[in-house]
């Protein structure tokens, strides 16, 4: 049994994959007649340097951390939760319902936690049903979660153009969150302490995202429950042998996964728009799969991967803005290449690395 040193496995190989993805993207940029160095400069400026750019990048990062964590928790149980998109969507509904019910009476200090709980609960509920079907009826989680994305979208369209639609306008949008149910934006919050920050939708959710990262790490690696979960994910026969109640674990794992996905809504709905809009998860649930894969299902990796994808998203829209020839599709192409090289082809360099760096680990 050979194993690569950690710095190669977790640092060098991902960096090489990333470099390769950018190199291929550079070739494409050259083919359409632009200078890849210029494009990269614009992207970096757009993602980090311009006023408010970093805020936007981190705002996207926050959403991706939640969905990435959601997918990763399911991964640890060897479940492929494709339904983060739908769970986030329903999470928005959960937050909205709590807000509409209570925001006239309760102060912010209570409203925010309650709305988060509402979002998490609805996300969990939307994952519980596929989880239960997988655990007790053997319906494959991939199929059911995909279907639940569609069902969820259908329900939301119905509500947003129906009973929850804000009167007096013609968009399928919900009633509004009042100020006491909105997540404070950081440029406002820090402004009060005299710290100037460019305007961006970056809000307090990023703190909750960081807490969620720590919580997931604690849960997966430092609790008995997490141990049982990882055992089940790594070897179901071993889990049966160890007396782990496998069906119950599947349901619980899916609920936690769904709750995290649902919490993505607090960033967008409560932190930015102040209302639930049609299709607000905007593919972040699916990008979360790539984030979890690239982050090796570890919170630290997920933070880094979410930052990368967040920067791509923000820098990419700047690219679209600056160049006539480069469109949003180009950014999708780069994303696709990154997913291709660090997901599907992530093991490409491994045999080559093993020949050079493998250590023998045998008794």
């Amino acid at each position, binding site marked *: *049994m*050979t*194993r690569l040193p950690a710095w190669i496995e977790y640092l060098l190989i991902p960096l090489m994959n990333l470099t390769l993805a950018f190199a291929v993207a550079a070739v494409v940029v050259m083919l359409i007649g632009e200078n890849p160095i210029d494009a990269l400069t614009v992207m970096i400026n757009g993602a980090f340097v311009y006023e408010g750019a970093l805020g936007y990048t981190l705002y996207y990062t926050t959403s991706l951390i939640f969905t990435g964590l959601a997918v990763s928790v399911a991964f640890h149980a060897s479940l492929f939760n494709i339904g983060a998109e739908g769970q986030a969507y329903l999470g928005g509904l959960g937050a909205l319902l709590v807000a509409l019910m209570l925001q006239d009476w309760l102060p912010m200090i209570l409203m925010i936690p309650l709305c988060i709980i509402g979002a998490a609960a609805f996300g969990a509920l939307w994952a519980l049903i596929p989880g239960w079907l997988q655990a007790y009826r053997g319906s494959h989680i991939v199929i059911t979660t995909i279907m639940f994305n569609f069902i969820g979208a259908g329900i939301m369209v119905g509500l947003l153009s129906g009973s929850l639609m804000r009167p007096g306008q013609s968009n399928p949008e919900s009633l509004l969150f009042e100020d006491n149910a909105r997540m404070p934006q950081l440029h406002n919050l820090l402004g009060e302490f005299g710290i100037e920050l460019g305007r961006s939708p970056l809000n307090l959710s990023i703190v909750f995202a960081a807490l969620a990262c720590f919580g997931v790490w604690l849960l997966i*690696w*430092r*609790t*008995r*429950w*997490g*141990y*049982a979960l*990882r*055992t089940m994910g*790594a*070897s179901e*026969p*071993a889990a*049966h*042998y*160890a*007396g782990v*109640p496998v069906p119950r674990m599947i349901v619980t794992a899916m609920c936690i996964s769904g709750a995290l996905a649902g919490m993505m809504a607090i960033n967008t709905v409560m932190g930015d728009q102040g209302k639930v809009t049609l299709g607000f998860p905007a593919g972040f649930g699916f990008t979360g799969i790539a984030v979890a894969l690239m982050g090796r299902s570890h919170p630290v990796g997920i933070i880094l991967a979410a930052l990368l994808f967040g920067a791509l998203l923000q820098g990419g829209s700047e690219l679209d803005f600056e160049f006539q020839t480069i469109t949003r599709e180009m950014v999708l192409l780069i994303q696709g290449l990154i997913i291709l090289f660090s997901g599907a082809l992530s093991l490409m360099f491994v045999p080559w690395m*093993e*020949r050079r760096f*493998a*250590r*023998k*680990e*045998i*008794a």
Partner: protein
Amino acid sequence: MINETRPRKQSEAVSNMPPAVYLQNITKTFGAVVANDSVDLTVPTGTIHGIIGENGAGKSTVVSILYGFYTADSGSIEINGEPATITNSADAIERGIGMVHQHFMLVPNFTVLENVMLGSEDGFFLRKGKAATRKELQRLSDEYGLDVDPDAVVETLPVGIQQRVEILKALRRGARILILDEPTGVLTPDETDRFFDILRGLRAQGVTVLLITHKLREIMEVTDGVSVMRRGKMVAHKQTSETTREELAELMVGRRVELTTPRIHVDTGPIALEARNLTWHGARGVARLRNVSLILRAGEILGLAGVSGNGQSELLDVLSGIAPVQEGQIIIGNRIINNNTPTDPAELRGLGVAHVPEDRHKRGLVLPFEARENAVLGYHTGPNTGEGRFLSPRALQGHCETLMERFDIRPTNPKLAAAGFSGGNQQKLVMAREIEPEPSIMLIGQPTRGVDIGGISFIHAEIMARKAAGCAILLVSVELDEIMALSDRIAVMNAGEIVGETTRDNADYRQIGLMMAGVSGTGDAGISGMGDTA
């Protein structure tokens, strides 16, 4: 110190005919692992030659190079005195080398004839090829005494006969040098005897047989010469008549080993576990256990003998709570477990039942997990792992270090993934985990499968020590020698039933062997066990 015979000397003893196989200085590395280190091997024509060594000693690599699965990094091969380059199995077959793999490569729902014909169909339509193969089978059967019904469907045949088909396949392709890789793993003692008769018959016809095994008994019984491998090197070549089991064991391991575990006699205590009329149906309603009853007493080892796949695994599953009790009941103290009062492995651990599973890779360990995590598998809710709902790495580390020291598990690195340990040390880790809570009942499945000789004696001594401490032990093993060495009582399983029980003192090797085969010795025992034994 052992005097090691040089390979050259070995060939001088035989006639002046060139040896069937002559390997010189074969070296093969995989990454940083040297699987074969300057290996020499001379196999005289028309002999049965054994290659013995522990798991990972490089036996399989040598024959894989000979059969063209791997190409050696350096070294030369001569077949019948002629230099040979063998880069794939077609080359090997062309030079008259045939191989029978440990896991048979037969199409189960084809007939014997169709299987033997595979690869030599001779044209688009099968009629001509079939006729030719039928004639050829008849000739081989006459010549070598290998009698098989050509029209029988392979999956309906006993394992011993299936193996015969594999040999026929090789001979049909003109093999004069036959490589057999661990051929007896799936055979009953009786089938093994008959298999050895076949090998002797082949030898009489001038076929050279290369027998790869880790069983000393087989080497002593059937081979003319034997080569011993250890850690990728050939450490000795011996004439079988001039060596002993003890000497070979010492050569394999590199130090003196006890081949027998001293038996400890203790007075048996009360009944610890009783199973009454357990019947269990697997998928598709096939009965895998029929009316199995047994009693385990404190301070006693009950050995359960049988060819793999005759219900032992299912019995262990039911007794350990992994599979539900369907019919019948299990009684442990005051607790009665039946269809209406189900249990689970966690409850049984609480009742003092420890389980060493048959398959440590699938069940006993989570291979990518660190050793210290594996050291609490099944006990992760217990006190050795931390406080409250949390799991403390420090507690895991300390617990694992204790186990590693007490059970001599190497390397003593609790953070190393379980997959990084040798088979013997993995098994010791599982044994350590199960023994440490001092259970009152132990269910032990195949405790020494794939474990080297040194590890076997250690594990046997531990099992014996548990018995002496008053534990009731059920020992399931396909190695009859192991059952005989450890048990106080022996029960034999065949086709899901316990077909006989005897005390160790009255046990007769041959009698048990016949019962394992289904008494008549020709029953359908063991068909389902195909490929189960590693």
